[in-house]
């Protein structure tokens, strides 16, 4: 029992270290973006937010996919560790979704002339956010751990399958969104400075995702250990 708490603490410390490294990385990306990348000719300074925005969207998508895959594994193996990971990943995913949904409009106001528009990817992110909120609401409403695991796994799998459908359905509205410039068939049409900063930021956000999830996992571990101690 105390061993459980001790191992939970170890996981939390590991998570905290990774998170701090990730946050320092975000600071580095900001410095790089503001001081070392050239200014985009049409969008000016507003484009700088893109170095935070796009990698956060990547982290959000990563978390939804990993939550879905973990959910499938959970229904197969019934291992509480997988459930804990799925929950942590979903929670971190909603944070990144929140970042995407706030940085997006800040960029959209000067460039599109409006805070919000029903552009395809914007709508997708919004519903992703709702999906994740639903996931947390469901978990919060169930006490019994095994039942909570099974139900949220079902939702996690369904959510993962839903994403391409939402994507397809909103894509058919002509979007205002900038078209892909890095992951496209021809060579990336991006200034090398910009590309480097962007790639660093993708790495940093992935690190931050891992850090957050590890930290959240450790907190849940401590929570479960305490609950088990209280029960016995």
């Amino acid at each position, binding site marked *: 029992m105390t061993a459980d708490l001790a191992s939970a603490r170890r996981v939390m410390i590991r998570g905290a270290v990774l998170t701090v490294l990730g946050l320092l990385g975000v600071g580095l990306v900001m410095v790089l973006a503001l001081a070392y990348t050239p200014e985009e000719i049409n969008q000016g300074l507003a484009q700088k937010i893109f170095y935070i925005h796009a990698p956060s969207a990547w982290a959000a998508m990563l978390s939804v996919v990993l939550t879905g895959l973990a959910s499938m594994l959970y*229904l197969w193996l019934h291992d509480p560790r997988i459930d804990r990971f799925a929950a942590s990943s979903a929670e971190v995913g909603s944070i990144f979704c929140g970042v995407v949904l706030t940085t997006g409009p800040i960029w959209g106001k000067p460039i599109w002339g409006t805070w919000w528009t029903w552009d395809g990817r914007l709508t997708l992110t919004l*519903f*992703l956010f*709702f*999906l994740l*909120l*639903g996931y947390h*609401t*469901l978990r919060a*409403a*169930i006490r019994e751990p*095994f*039942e909570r695991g*099974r*139900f949220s*796994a*079902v*939702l996690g*799998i*369904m*959510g993962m*399958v*839903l994403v391409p*459908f*939402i994507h*397809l*359905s*909103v894509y*058919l509205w002509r979007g205002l969104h900038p078209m892909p410039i890095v992951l496209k068939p021809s060579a990336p049409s991006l200034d090398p400075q910009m590309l480097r900063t962007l790639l660093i930021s993708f790495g940093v956000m992935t690190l931050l995702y891992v850090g957050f999830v590890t930290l959240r996992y450790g907190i849940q571990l401590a929570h479960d250990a305490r609950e088990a101690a209280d029960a016995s």
Partner: protein
Amino acid sequence: MGRALRLALVIAAKDIRLELRSRTSLLSASVFAALVLIVFNFARDPTAVATVDLAPSVLWVTVSFAAVVAMNRAFTVERENAAFDGLLLAPVDREILYLGKFLANLAFVLVVEAIALPLFVLFFNIDLGGALPGLLITLLLATAGFVAVGTVFSAMVVRTRFAELMLPILLLPFMVPPLIFAVKISVLLLAGRPLSEVAEGLRFLAIYDVVFVTLSVLLFSAVVDE
């Protein structure tokens, strides 16, 4: 296969018989649909907005809200007297149990739609013309998609606190793709476009149905088996 379908129909018939005797959910969902339609009519300025511009969204808002009201009942009726335990003890596979529940829910929501559609035509003074067959296919395909997901979710939410509030929260994102397509198709149909022009949209709805009915059949046992 024939036996599976027959068993599913037995379960569905049980639900429908139960509802026909009490009529509470059917009545409340229908009255709810009528109220939504009426409120929309008062909110519209008839000189500024043409009915045909507003009608498709009104139809689908009504349908989706009424569907949630109707679907909430699927497993709440089973909670009383632990009726669901009896159903689980019955010698049928979980997949068949799901199909039965799905068919009953589908029948249910379709009945509510069958009541709402004439009211919609009447209140909004819609000239359906040749749009009716296409509209009926769209209603069936779109409804089947979110009822499939809703049936699984309603089995989950009855086990939680605040069950009735939970279903719309979980279901909303899953209603989005079928609703977007259904609205787009309805806009075209009510504008008098031919069925061939909406074939792509109908195909999307059909794919959504196949994917989510299959997924729901596979996942249902994870919801009900402890």
